[in-house]
């Protein structure tokens, strides 16, 4: 599957620092897992990089102040899912130099595996590719398993997005530093940086800079959506198939996003927490397209004002157009998982509204990267035969890449059906007493 890439609009634009918004809004749920626990109070002055909230458990991360300023309010704030969660409003000091607070550095030479994992959690790092799963949890090798290969994911198969591309071209040192931490944390013997063929320049650039004696190779894979999905990448690079329902560690691999790697390499040597991230802002509705380093918590409205959004803006996606989520409320803020903001104007949207019946054309079957039968699943979903979908048609393996919906000539919202069906099944299973 090859959706139009639209990457050339921003892939040549270097990363630029975004201005600090007058007010920063930090939701306490920016990651998968338990909410962070606020440790500041209203009226308190905070310094950029200072801890605002500590991790709410093992599967959780702390939050750091993205700006120096005053905690104005602790209240419920909107999030992209529409749910209100606890959050912090910080009024930015207008004339501060925004120096970042230093913490306790972690040296990859001397630190133990556990210390590194702890350091990664303390830095508040989550998967920056979009999933926002706490990285230290992902890196923790379960009892009885071992990791032989660490895969750095520089695929970025989502159309429009060039975040990882720019990071690879501009933050090579951070990436290689990050890799040292990751090698130690996972115990892997080798590292493969996987890059899609449309970013040959990044592949060449990184290859030329691999530090001596590091077990790192750069491997270019064909352009193919959704090549960046973990399972697809493991198969493309290692020829191993991750078993249904399992994680890459089942086949002795761990996959980490390249921007996440760079962030680890930048933050851990200084003991800092994450306060900003690279985001591609693009799409037909944006005047100043580009790749920006944006403080986390910057309100979306402020971002769009700064880049000049078209007045006919109709849809805004956080993430790419394939898997990103449409925004209904511009008062939400940038979070750690925001890899891109794509703005569409009314006339750029070519998506037809009319849904036809499934004509069994098979396009979805051809497109599904894991050989599911979305046509059949879609029909079953209509009949609400959720259990059969899971039992006989591997519904739970669907990772919601959206390929099926993208190709469907009848414009059936297949992946939407599957998301709903999956959540219903998960709820049912949770309700069931463990057998």
């Amino acid at each position, binding site marked *: 599957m090859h959706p139009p890439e639209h990457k050339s609009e921003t892939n040549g634009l270097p990363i630029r620092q975004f201005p600090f918004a007058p007010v920063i809004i930090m939701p306490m749920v920016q990651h998968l897992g338990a909410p962070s626990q606020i440790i500041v109070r209203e009226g308190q002055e905070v310094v950029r990089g200072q801890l605002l909230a500590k991790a709410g458990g093992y599967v959780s991360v702390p939050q750091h102040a993205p700006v120096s300023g005053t905690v104005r309010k602790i209240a419920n704030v909107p999030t992209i899912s529409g749910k209100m969660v606890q959050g912090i409003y910080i009024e930015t000091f207008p004339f501060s130099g925004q120096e970042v607070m230093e913490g306790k550095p972690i040296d990859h030479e001397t630190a133990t595996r556990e210390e590194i994992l702890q350091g990664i959690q303390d830095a508040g790092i989550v998967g920056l590719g979009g999933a926002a799963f706490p990285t230290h949890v992902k890196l923790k090798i379960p009892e009885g398993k071992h990791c032989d290969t660490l895969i750095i994911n520089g695929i970025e198969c989502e159309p429009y997005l060039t975040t990882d591309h720019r990071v690879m071209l501009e933050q090579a040192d951070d990436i290689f530093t990050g890799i040292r931490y990751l090698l130690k944390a996972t115990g892997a013997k080798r590292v493969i940086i996987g890059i899609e063929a449309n970013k040959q320049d990044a592949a060449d650039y990184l290859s030329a800079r691999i530090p001596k004696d590091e077990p790192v190779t750069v491997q270019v894979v064909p352009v193919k959506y959704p090549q960046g999905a973990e399972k697809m990448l493991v198969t493309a690079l290692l020829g191993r198939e991750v078993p249904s329902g399992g994680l890459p560690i089942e086949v002795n691999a761990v996959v980490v996003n390249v921007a996440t790697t760079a962030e680890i390499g930048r933050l851990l040597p200084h003991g800092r927490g994450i306060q900003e991230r690279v985001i591609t802002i693009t799409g037909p509705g944006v005047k100043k397209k580009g790749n920006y380093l944006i403080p986390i918590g910057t309100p979306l409205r402020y971002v769009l004002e700064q880049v000049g959004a078209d007045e006919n803006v109709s849809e805004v996606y956080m993430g790419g157009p394939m898997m990103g989520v449409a925004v209904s409320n511009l008062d939400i803020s940038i979070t750690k998982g925001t890899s891109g903001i794509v703005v569409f104007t009314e006339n750029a949207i070519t*998506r037809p509204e009319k849904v036809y019946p499934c004509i069994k054309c098979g396009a979805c079957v051809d497109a599904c990267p894991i050989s599911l039968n979305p046509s059949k699943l879609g029909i079953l979903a209509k009949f609400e035969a959720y259990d059969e979908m899971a039992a006989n048609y591997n519904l739970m393996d669907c990772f919601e890449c959206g390929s099926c919906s993208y190709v469907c000539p009848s414009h059936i919202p297949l992946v939407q059906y599957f998301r709903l069906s999956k959540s219903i099944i998960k709820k049912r299973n949770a309700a069931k007493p463990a057998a």
Partner: protein
Amino acid sequence: MLHKTLNISTSPHIVKGLGTNDIMRNVVWALVPVAIYAVYSFGLSALLILVTSTAACVLTEHFLARYSKKESTISDWSAVITGLLLGLTLPPNFPLWMAFLGGIISIALGKFVFGGLGYNVFNPALVGRAFLQAAFPVAITTWFPVYAPERFSTVSAATFTLPFLEPATDGFTGATPLSAFKFDHVTTSTSDLALGLITGSTGETCAVLIMLGGVYLVARNMMNWRIPVSILATVYALSGLLYMVNSQTYPSPDFMLFSGGLMLGAVFMATDMVGSPITPLGVWIYGAVIGLLVVVIRIWGGLPEGVMYAILLGNALSPHIDNLVRPRVYGTTKTLDIRLMNKEQPVNTTTEANSRKMLITMVGIGAICALLIVLSFQGTLPRIEKLKAEALEKAIFKVIPGMVTKKTYQLEGSSLKEVTGKVKDAQLVYAGYDKDGKLVGVAVEASGMGFADVLRVLYGYDPNKQAVVGFYVLESKETPGLGDKIEKDPAFLSNFKALDAALSDDKNTLKNKVVTVKHGTKKNAWEVDGITGATISSRAIGNIMGTSTNQMVPLLYKNKDFFEEKSHQ
């Protein structure tokens, strides 16, 4: 701008853009050249058929949608495709009201009862075609000459037949309607078939245009090329094998490929997405099954349109094929029956219930169709007999020039007795008299083995001239375009305007037996000048005539006076 309400969509927010209606519309475009060629070769009648069947489908679709209070689905173009395809599979001189009825059945029974587009099991056009085949076996096997000179100014007399009246018979060439189609025979040149120079159904004649349409759709990614390829390859390979085994009994693979409705069926009907499998391997199997069925039905089945039934069967099988060859899901080891491995999971029975419903519907439809077939066969039997009798009557007047009245005699040994009305299983001869009651000839039926099947002919013998004076082919299944020249070729037919049948001196045998000679070598009045390219068929005629005249002419001559006397009684 930033106060505007934003539109919420679910991911993916972009789509490939190729819509179902686009696909359907392009299939229509691909069919247009085929339709135009059909009109060009068959004239107005063909145009009327196509318009009628298409209109019937579109109107039915519209009214059914309205009746079921749904949004009209005409705009998806699928009804247009069904209508066009149906029209293209019908004979060009098919009565319009029947075509209209076929269109209604296609949409109502072929699509609507299943739940509309996408839910139908069978190709709707073929459902309509199968219905027509069952209900009107006569009309659907009545052919019309290709490139008739007057095709743009007149329409076939059958076209405007009123409902439930029997169609006029101007197109008759094969007198037994339930007999096999003409195209299942061997010698027609492949290039003629491919270029549509041979008669057939309205749109099945030009294989080249059909293939071009297919190539267009494949190039636009709107058709699964594997289906026609696997069907055609299977047909070719299988019939090639048979041909190698015995080239006498089995038709050549080229012929199989380009004759009849195979091309249209393989390219435009088997590929109907709704009725074909969606798994990659399933598609190949489906094509191979259809190809196999086509060969089997054509060669051994004795059914005329093998392609139609093969595709319908393929349609019925395709969900099962899909189920059998499900691709292995990434990260699983399960290939075939996942259900077995998930025994502990309660399986929701909704879809099971639906399959059962579907099964019941299908069995119901099957039963209704079977009933219809039986009824219409019974219903048409007397009519067929009547048509046959009429055809014979006409033929008698053709083979005896100048006759005005007719008397029928039954032959018993060597004597004759006059009969009236129906006589079963008797050798009859028909004497013709002019307006003064003078004997102008005696018509005799004769038959023998032709190239493909039995040939039945009628000839007129004039005892006064001691010659055959007229000839007519009553029944022939010789290859269209070649063998059937024995019925049409004017040069050949002129052989029988005055074919010498003089008796030898003892009046017990012919002086010279009638024989067919090689084309251009006729020297004597008792020789029949053969047809190049239809050597076997024209020889067969010579043999039949030779045997029959040898036996009958002395007998008839002896009774010459008897005939004369009878005239005055």
